[in-house]
């Protein structure tokens, strides 16, 4: 084998050149395959994989997906395809709809409306600005398109409620787990009782 590679390397004939190129392409393909294979399985660390790299074939790139808590759907609302078919006619200009009236949009409603996030044809998916479809479990990618610094902080673990373990794999909540995507601003809470004045402690 090594004898062959060595002689192949020195062979100046047409055959030699073509074989060399085939070997190189094979090696490259093998390398990519290996990379994608390991990437798909996730990097192996003692603490366990922190996140998974998957290939986004539409954009021909690798994106990082995070293991998140399940999307906080209202009871029975999902899958949306129960009511919405892929071939329904959809009015794509912003307008007030008759259904889902319990949802009040209070999220840049002057510039945004439902179909800016929800895909018109496939209601079981959301869509990014360029039209790429994403699952509800990846909704942070959509939020991050406008809230970039927040997404960066969320990935590092700085943004959001932390549960789980401070060491090793982080438990992530979806943005929607805490912030209602239709009305994300936190409502004021009633504070718990103030401490007793020390004069009152008997």
């Amino acid at each position, binding site marked *: 084998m090594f004898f062959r590679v060595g002689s192949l390397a020195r062979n100046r004939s047409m055959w030699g050149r073509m074989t060399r190129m085939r070997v190189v392409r094979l090696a490259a393909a093998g390398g990519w395959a290996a990379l994608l294979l390991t990437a798909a399985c996730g990097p192996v660390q003692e603490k366990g994989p922190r996140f998974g790299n998957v290939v986004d074939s539409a954009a021909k790139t690798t994106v990082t997906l995070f293991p998140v808590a399940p999307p906080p759907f209202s009871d029975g609302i999902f899958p949306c395809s129960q009511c919405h078919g892929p071939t329904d006619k959809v009015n794509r200009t912003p307008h007030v709809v008759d259904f889902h009236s319990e949802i009040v949009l209070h999220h840049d409603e002057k510039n945004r409306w439902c179909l800016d996030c929800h895909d018109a044809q496939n209601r079981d998916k959301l869509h990014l600005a360029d039209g790429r479809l994403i699952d509800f479990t990846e909704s942070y990618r959509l939020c991050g398109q406008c809230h970039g610094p927040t997404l960066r902080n969320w990935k590092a673990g700085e943004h959001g409620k932390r549960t789980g373990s401070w060491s090793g794999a982080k438990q992530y909540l979806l943005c929607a787990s805490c912030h209602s995507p239709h009305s994300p601003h936190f409502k004021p809470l009633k504070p718990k009782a103030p401490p007793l004045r020390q004069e009152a402690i*008997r």
Partner: protein
Amino acid sequence: MSFIRKTSNFVTGTARMAFLGGNKVYYAWLFLLVACIVQALFAYAHQYERGLISTNMRDSVSWGFYIGNFTFLVGVAAAAVLLVIPAYVYDWKPIKEVALFGEMLAVASIVMCLLFVLVDMGRPDRFWHILPGIGHMHMPSSIMAWDSIVLNVYLAINLIVASYLVYCAYHRIPYNKKIVVPLVIFSIPMAVSIHTVTAFLYNGMASRPYWNSAILAPRFIASAFCSGPALLLILFQILRKVSAFEIKDEAIHKVAELMAYAMGFNLFLFGAEIFREYYSNTHHLVHYEYLFSGLHGKASPIALYAWMSLGFAIISFLLFLIPRTRRMPLTMNIGCVLIYLSVYIEKGIALIIPGFTPDQLGQVYAYVPSAIELRVAAGVFGVGFLLFTLMVKVSVVILFERDAQPVHA
């Protein structure tokens, strides 16, 4: 006689001298002190049962009346030195005979200090944790640990010297100067150290800017030296009247003069603190505002006492400074009472409470001592005064009355 015989003879003999042969006033005074102690035992039992919640101390003001009294009494104990220094160092005859009483006052004061610390502890049953060897004493970093050492060493020195001198006088044998003089000389830096270490307890705490001042230790020494002897001056005048106790006027006037200088220095240091605080005008001023007026629109419960303390200090300083008023018994005694009250307030209320008010997070808790605290403190003072009274009675009998010739005027 063997040593044991001599000692048991001494114990029974002095006990007889202490409790017998007094007049009506003396027994009434003893009864009052015992009553104070008994009522305090009940009060302390209540406090021990329920915990320190029966005091008015809380997280914001975690030291109060007990520790204030402790601090003042450490000063009184240290002030015995004021009488010792001239007597032994300068061999100044007029004060020599009264230095013993200063040492006895020191013993009584230290006993009161230790009692105040004991009643202030949350777990007095665990006091042995601080004993080196069987407990775990946190040396060298804990100033409280240093304080427990120096206080007990100072107590031991004064106890040894005073009892040895009285023992020798009782048995009419000359005392061994080689034992007494080194111990007494050693008690001078010890006296300075007990009060300096107590000051360090406070001024080492960066968390309390009211205390975190370098001149707290000199202030403590100055106020101790001016107040401690006041009690003794009054005592000597009383003893001179009711017993054969002798003390030259010269001695009294000299002590009063030294007190004047100490108070002058005390006022100077106080003025220096006031200047620093009010001129720099940082947030740390809030503690002085609480001391002298109040915060957030509410009057401070201690403001009146703070002004009283300052007024008394200035008046007594003048009374002691001016030779005429110093020598006149009435004005001198008024000065003694005022100086004692002034420093009692300054070292007690005016030191502890503003240090804690407002607390580290800016919250104000207006502390005043509770009834239990007052009762227990009265009992501790009762113990100290009782101890001191008995020691003084014994000493007066041995030194001045027992061998007195009938012809003595």
